[in-house]
């Protein structure tokens, strides 16, 4: 009888997300939280596959916020913000780059891992 083998593996997507900041009082907010940075402890990052990865990750996305509307998901790794590299920055530098007062729109390049299942049929004889 043929044996069905189910494989599951991670695939990385790169996506471009455009977020329009929401004005709340005196601040412009994006509606998500970030974690990580080169001055942080990478082993505590629950979202990274490689525990030495010191990049910036999205740790929370507020419901109904601009980030969720734009399609940002929890666990995304932010690679670029408006052309600025975010893979080798400190936590505070990342925060500053995202919260520039004179920018209303931020364009992010994010990497997402998603689980894909592939069903393979194989013949065993």
């Amino acid at each position, binding site marked *: 009888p043929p044996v069905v083998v189910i494989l599951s593996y991670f695939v990385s997507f790169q996506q471009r997300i455009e977020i329009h900041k929401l004005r709340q009082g005196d601040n412009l*907010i*994006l509606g*998500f*939280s*970030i*974690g990580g940075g080169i*001055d*942080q*402890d990478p082993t*505590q*990052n629950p979202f990274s596959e490689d525990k030495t990865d010191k990049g910036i990750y999205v*740790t*929370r996305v*507020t419901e109904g916020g601009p980030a969720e509307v734009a399609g940002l998901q929890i666990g995304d790794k932010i690679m670029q913000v408006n052309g600025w590299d975010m893979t080798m920055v400190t*936590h505070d530098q990342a*925060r500053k780059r*995202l*919260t520039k007062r004179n920018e209303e729109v931020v364009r992010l390049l994010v990497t997402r891992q998603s689980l894909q299942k592939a069903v393979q049929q194989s013949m065993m004889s």
Partner: protein
Amino acid sequence: MSTAMDTESTYSGYSHYSGHSKKAHRQGRDRHKSPRSKDGSRSEKSVTIQTPPAEPLLGNDASRAEEGQDDNWGETTTAITGTSEHSISQEDIARISKDLEDSVGLDCKRYLGLTVAAVLGLLVFLTPIAFILLPQILWRDDLEPCGTVCEGLFISVAFKLLILLIGTWALFFRQPKADLPRVFVFRALLLVLIFLFVFSYWLFYGVRILDSKDTNYQGIVQYAVSLVDALLFIHYLAIVLLELRQLQPMFTVKVVRSTDGESRYYSLGHLSIQRAALVVLENYYKDFTVYNPTLLTASKSRAAKHMAGLKVYNVDGNNASGQSRAMIAAAARRRDSSHNELYYEEADHERRVKKRRARLVVAVEEAFTHIKRLQAEEQQKAPGEMMDPREAAQAIFPSMARALQKYLRTTRQQQYHSMESILQHLSFCITNNMTPKAFLERYLSPGPTLQYDRDRWFSKQWTLVSEEAVTSGLQDGVVFVLKCLDFSLVVNVKKIPFIKLSEEFIDPKSHKFVLRLQSETSV
């Protein structure tokens, strides 16, 4: 044969040196068979043909060994006659002859050395004064008048001589605390140096000044000043050679007592072997616990039992070297339960000691509280009148005497403490307001030799045995032995290793702990 064996087997283990047995079997007896009664019941006929050479040490002490086994030892051991123990009489002779020759020889040598040094010292001290005074006495009228510089030099000579005197007194005129067998090399060297030095100065003085009657008095005084300066420098050399050089530790010596293996380590500098032996002995009296021969009886009786178990029959009569090998092989093969005995014996002994110790501590505590009560009563009755500590000690002593005596008997220390000494110690403790524990500290465990009465020391005269000359310095690996009559101290010298400490630059960030956070910021 069997009847002879039966008569042998009737007496108890204690008195196997008693007169009766000696008369019956004087020749060819093996001395080490203490459990006689067992031999008679064995199936083999124990006919002793050849005895191994009797070791007098073992036979000597086995008779004294019975003491420790019973509390009432004084009543049952038999007397040791002189003829049965050859080794004791030899030791006695050796001891007597040593006493005789030592008392005469040593004093002579010591006093000779001292007088030579004293005479030389006096001569050296008076020399500069003589140098200054002689021209004044002999040719006063021809001398140039002494100016201010010259008189200033007088003062300097006077003070330098005073300093030299004080320094010499501090360095050399100390109570000698020991007698060393050989001449002290550095001291002898210094004495010779001083002698040559002063001699050459006198020679120069005699030839150039006395004979030619030099009139330049200032020059003469300056000459005397230079002598005193040079003497001060020799004194400095003496300090460095005799005192400073041995202060920095270069060697570690390990001292092991031969009888019970107690060992200590000391740090020494560059010393000669005889002086190192002196340091070791000084520290022995305060560091090592007192030598107690009764503590060694257990191991000796075990050793006797090991030897007694096997008998060797030499059938052919010619293979003497094969005997020892056969004995060792047989001993290894035989199933020996003496380790079991040792374990249970030691456990039992420890239990007994702990029990007696508990009783003793309680008894002493009760006695001391009784004193406090008595003192409180006395103060109420007649304030200001102190109870005599001696009376207080005598009042409470009977209540703890029995417990103390039993404890001392169990730990085999009873011969070190007499009733008078205990009473004295007790009144001393009461006078100084000590607690029961402080009083008991002296009795609970054996202390250093200095703590006890001189008669109990067992170690007053020492002999230094060394392969290398005793005046040569310590080297790595030197071994020498300090023997006294009952035991010896084996001293092993090791050099302190050369330590190389180097400096290395390390980036402070790389080897320190950095606290890394995991913060989350909302944007």
